């Protein structure tokens, strides 16, 4: 067995990478095989993986992670405006800035735990949102959102004499990041993000985070100063959120304050719980499912529904169109809410628990060995 990674970890990582990279192929039959949506799958996957390091491993539920996502976006767009249109410096800049921001907010919020911690993060995130929306308009361009313009200085691009024609678009080493290039760029980061999360979960540091979640009192009486451990989990997950925000700015160079609103913070909580808190792949799957159904359901309208139900007698079809139309389009959050309630009641461990239960049914004939499997590799 190699010392760096166990065989199971290696298999999981290889399987995950394969699934991600082949997404354009296997998602095509589901009507999701186009770059714009796939990029969002990658971006929110990264967001959820990072959020899970704080919520799933360490047990601190933050209701304000969209703030770091938004800061990442703003930082990336400023890098495009001031430095260069190349994506790499923008990403580095965004991750560093959101990490610093998370350090300050985390330092303050982690003075409390449980619900008080959650409320503090929510309060800070709403403050950030309001600052971005109005007070800090010179930096954020208020409700219009921060955009690229032809007159931006871009000192590095100007210094190397790179000119361009038309609307400025982010690139990497001159290669444009539109379409599938953008998807593979984001996919590379998701795989990297997953790898780092996997390393954290399998390290002594990760075990300490799990121990903090399990019993903070025992941790302290065991001689651990838990604060720096929780704070580093907070900063790492803030940097993940910043990375995701930067990627969104790379694929669409516009940053708006609504990205920092509490609904966006709530969404990543839903993704993590829906997929499976504390598991490695669960949050990613949760992010994919939510983004997929958001895409499908919010595009439906009364006309499409009328065609769908047209095989029924006219009166019945009209009623069904009326009822179902509340659950699609702008009302798709109603469907999301219902699905969430059902999962929390029947599968508190999320989709990953469902997968484990099904796997357990197949393995039952084996032996009690199946029972010990999930705990020797809890990060499955």
């Amino acid at each position, binding site marked *: 067995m190699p010392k760096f990674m166990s065989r199971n970890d290696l298999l999981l990582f290889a399987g995950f990478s394969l699934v991600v990279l082949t997404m354009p192929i296997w998602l095509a039959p589901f009507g999701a095989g186009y770059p714009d949506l796939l990029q969002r799958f990658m971006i929110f996957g990264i967001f959820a993986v990072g959020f899970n390091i704080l919520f799933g491993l360490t047990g601190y539920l933050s209701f304000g992670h969209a703030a770091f996502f938004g800061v990442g976006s703003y930082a990336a767009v400023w890098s495009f405006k001031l430095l260069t249109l190349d994506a790499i410096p923008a990403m580095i800049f965004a991750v560093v800035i959101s990490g610093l921001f998370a350090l300050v907010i985390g330092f303050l919020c982690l003075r409390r735990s449980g619900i008080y911690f959650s409320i503090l993060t929510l309060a800070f995130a709403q403050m950030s949102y309001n600052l971005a929306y109005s007070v800090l308009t010179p930096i954020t361009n208020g409700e219009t959102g921060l955009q690229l313009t032809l007159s931006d200085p871009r000192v590095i691009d100007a210094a190397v004499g790179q000119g361009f024609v038309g609307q400025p678009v982010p690139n990497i080493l001159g290669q444009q990041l539109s379409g599938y290039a953008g998807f593979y760029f984001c996919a590379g980061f998701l795989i990297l993000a997953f790898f780092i999360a996997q390393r954290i979960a399998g*390290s002594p540091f990760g075990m300490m985070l799990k121990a903090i979640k399990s019993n903070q009192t025992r941790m302290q009486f065991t001689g651990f*100063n838990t604060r720096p451990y929780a704070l580093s989990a907070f900063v790492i997950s803030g940097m993940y959120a910043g990375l995701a925000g930067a990627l969104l700015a790379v694929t669409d160079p516009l940053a708006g304050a609504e990205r920092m609103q509490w609904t966006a913070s709530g969404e990543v909580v839903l993704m993590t719980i829906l997929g499976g808190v504390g598991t490695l792949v669960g949050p990613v799957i949760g992010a994919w499912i939510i983004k997929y159904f958001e895409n499908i359901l919010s595009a439906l309208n009364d006309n499409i529904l009328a065609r769908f139900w047209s095989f029924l007698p006219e009166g019945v079809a009209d009623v069904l169109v009326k009822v179902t139309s509340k659950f699609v389009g702008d009302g798709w959050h109603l469907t999301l809410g219902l699905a969430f309630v059902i999962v929390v009641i029947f599968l508190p461990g999320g989709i990953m628990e469902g997968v484990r239960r099904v796997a357990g049914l197949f393995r039952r004939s084996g032996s009690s060995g199946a029972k010990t499997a999930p*705990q020797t590799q809890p990060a499955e």
Partner: protein
Amino acid sequence: MANPNVVLHVADVHKRFGGLHALSDIDLQIEEGKTHAIIGPNGAGKSTLLNVIIGKLAPSSGQVVFDGNVLTGKKPYQINQLGIARVFQTPEIFADLSVLHNVMIPALAKRDGMFTLNMMRSLESETGIRAKAEHMLEDVGMLNRRDMLAGSLSRGDKRRMELAMCLIQHPRLLLLDEPTAGMSRHDTNTTIELLKKIKARGMTKVIIEHDMHVVFSLADKISVLAQGRIIADGTPDQVRGNPKVQEAYLGGAH
């Protein structure tokens, strides 16, 4: 202090909760290598005293000195790092982790307690710590349960594991808060056997206990607490014969 063997000195401690004198004028000297039991009826202030020693409660006056360090005002993790480990009345364990990991964490605490961002090292490669933890589990007779979830253990096994978690740190002082509370006769006896085994190693222990059977089979010295005061102090035989103790505790309760 006058006696150089004293490792823990509870000096003139008072603790008031509003108008209630939970502890008055407590002066305790615990000697190195001895097992010192603190007994007393319910509400005598035993748990308050332990919480003052461990730094969970601040005394209203007086102080607690361990090996030249004033414990008062220190945080639990700092007190642990001075060499004090604690077993709780209800086992405080990492219920969602395996037994082996439960025992590995305190061993890592000695090394990384203050904070190390060792997130790129693999848990698999911590062979030294793992071997130590396995050895410790073998010592308390739980090696065959190492892959079980700690939360699924029986009460007696949780206690044994918690003891292993404390012992792996080689503490200079072990505090035990009713180590056999809520246990079956069988579990109580295995726990006493284990504590006797540890006693042979010369570790200093303070036991707070209800069960006379446990106290008289383990303690070198006993202090009897009643209504927040120490009413008797001495060897088990001295305490057993003390009429004040008979009246306040042994006679009254049984």
